């Protein structure tokens, strides 16, 4: 795992032309390169072979229920924010066979599925996504029971993080304390600078193996001007995010408003489509499906992503516990922002904004929190009051 180095450590600079050398060096260590690429007019995560697969020169415009890619004036490699997919599709696959069974009608034999090991390099993982990864590590690896499949897929992951200098319209990681600059848990962290004719990356090694990879490419110690530019880009990014959330005593706020009329207001719009849970980088709920082949001689159990927005999710004999849209939305947001803290010692929200962008009707988690606060007589504070400027 990565050591905990952060901002303020020695910084290095690589020219944009050295980026592919960096990827080659990572690949040479035996990692499969996964990174952002464009498909169906959105940024998705998939296998990449080099910088040519990245969404170079693209940016995105995100709002509640809106996502559009736009051409940039420059050739930035990472000039967009997060798309609908998350890295959990690799480390916590949406379908996973847990075991197979065979039967001759009376005896049953169960064959476990051996957890598959993978060595993934996550190229361009964002600070909010690193925070989400740390949350999944805590859920799946810290017991009392651990998930052997997640453990095998996650055992050796190279993390090439990219700081966010181009936050999106629904981003609020700064409010959640997870960005726009990475703090810990990475191997290498890049900050991209594209200004006039300059195009380079500041590189911050966060682990020994990250530092080793850096040795394989041409770099120099960052100049004071380069460091200052990166720092300015990141501090500007803090204020360019389209959303912000006041998380002060948020757990208590949610708990004391379990029976608030606002939930009914949301329910009038919520389609129970489960998009928010599918795009969320931390949502981890799953179900299992047991099936047989046509002959009945083989059976298997498959684990699949599930969502608390379905009626089946809470079904017990006689009916669903959460029958209304009101109850399902309340469960989701209360879990995310409040009970997650009791369960895992951390918020379940990292401020990536995906649930806002990909909600077909633009329901906004940050607005929900403001609405509860305002109903209690609080006045909405300005962004600058929250971020301490």
């Amino acid at each position, binding site marked *: 795992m990565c050591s905990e180095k952060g901002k303020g450590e020695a910084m290095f600079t690589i020219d944009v032309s050295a980026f592919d050398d960096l990827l080659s060096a990572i690949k040479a260590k035996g990692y499969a390169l996964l990174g952002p690429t464009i498909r169906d007019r959105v940024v998705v995560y998939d296998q990449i072979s080099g910088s040519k697969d990245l969404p170079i020169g693209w940016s995105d415009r995100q709002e509640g229920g809106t996502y559009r890619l736009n051409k940039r004036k420059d050739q930035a490699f990472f000039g967009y924010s997060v798309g609908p997919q998350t890295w959990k599709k690799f480390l916590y696959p949406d379908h996973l066979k*847990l*075991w197979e*069974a065979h*039967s001759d009608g*009376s*005896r*049953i034999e*169960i064959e*476990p599925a051996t957890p598959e090991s993978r060595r993934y390099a996550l190229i361009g993982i964002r600070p909010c996504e690193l925070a989400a990864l740390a949350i999944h590590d805590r*859920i*799946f690896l*810290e*017991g*009392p*029971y*651990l*998930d*052997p499949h997640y453990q095998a897929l996650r055992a050796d992951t190279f993390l090439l993080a990219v700081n966010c200098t181009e936050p999106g319209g629904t981003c609020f990681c700064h409010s959640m304390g997870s960005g726009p600059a990475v703090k810990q848990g990475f191997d290498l962290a890049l900050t991209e600078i594209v200004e006039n004719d300059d195009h380079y990356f500041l590189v911050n090694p966060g682990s020994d193996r990250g530092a080793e990879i850096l040795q394989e490419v041409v770099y120099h110690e960052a100049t004071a001007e380069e460091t200052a530019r990166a720092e300015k880009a990141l501090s500007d990014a803090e204020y360019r995010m389209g959303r912000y959330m006041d998380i002060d005593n948020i757990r208590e706020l949610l*708990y004391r408003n*379990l*029976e608030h009329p606002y939930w009914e207001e949301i329910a009038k719009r919520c389609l129970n489509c489960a998009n928010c849970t599918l795009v969320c980088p931390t949502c*981890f*709920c*799953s*179900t*299992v499906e*047991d*099936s*047989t082949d046509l002959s*009945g001689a083989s*059976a298997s*159990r498959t*684990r699949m992503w*599930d969502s*608390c927005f379905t009626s*089946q*999710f*809470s*079904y*017990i*004999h*006689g009916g669903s*516990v*959460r*029958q*209304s849209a*009101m*109850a399902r939305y309340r*469960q989701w947001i209360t*879990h995310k922002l*409040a*009970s997650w803290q*009791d*369960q895992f010692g951390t918020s379940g929200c990292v401020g990536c904004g995906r649930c806002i962008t990909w909600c077909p009707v633009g329901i906004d988690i940050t607005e929900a929190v403001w609405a509860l606060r305002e109903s209690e007589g609080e006045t909405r504070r300005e962004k600058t009051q929250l971020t301490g400027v």
Partner: protein
Amino acid sequence: MLPQVDPMLPTLYQIEKVTKETEDTFTLALNPAQTDGLPPFQPGQFNMLYIYGVGEVPISISGDPAIPRTLVHTTRAVGTVTRAMKQLKKDQQIGIRGPYGSHWPVTEAIGDDIVLVAGGIGLAPLRPALYQVLAMRERFGKVVLLYGTRTPEDILFKKELENWRKRFDLEVYVTVDRATGNWYGNVGVVPSLIPKAPFDPHQTTAMICGPEVMMRFTVHALQNRGMATQNIYVSMERNMKCAIGLCGHCQLGPTFICKDGPVYRFDVIERLFDKREL
């Protein structure tokens, strides 16, 4: 952290006996198919039962914790899996994972009067607690079992109930919502038995299992007798897929029923209990 075995992998058991209890409820007695069975269980805990190719469901253990090798489960045939389970015959195999969850505080209650309150199928998860109490009967004060069902035909474990009623060291009261046939016993809901039940409210541990509405009114009745909520325990139920705290289905507020429950001290979940659709 637990040893590196896949926690989603069932252990095979063999049907020893299927007993019909009422029209829609039955009891399975199971023995390990191989030499090693699951670890011993505590009263109130549950197992995940897998029917080949059909599915897996959580069912509380209704047998005697002093005989841990044979697992006994009593359930109602209400869904696809439990209906398939009802069709099982001796020597057929079934997959089991467990035991899971919190347990009734029987040893913690030594020295107290014990009040067990069961509604319908809720008697099944309480029976192991009663077995454990009776196994060291002299270490408790009064022991009371209050049991209610919809009709006399729904009464579980009839023979056993009759034997318990014959004991001088155990008070058993049974009531039905609706009298049918030649029922001459109590008619009314279970909480109505509480005002007259013989126990000292200031030195009693109460354990309740039944539908949520029945448990709510039972708690109120116990409080009216002067009992503190710290001495009242309830067993909760939610949808459950993994039973190991990873699938997210069984959340009740900040808790997971599979590991923080199913047995809760009432004051711990009191604030969640009256909220609809939580």
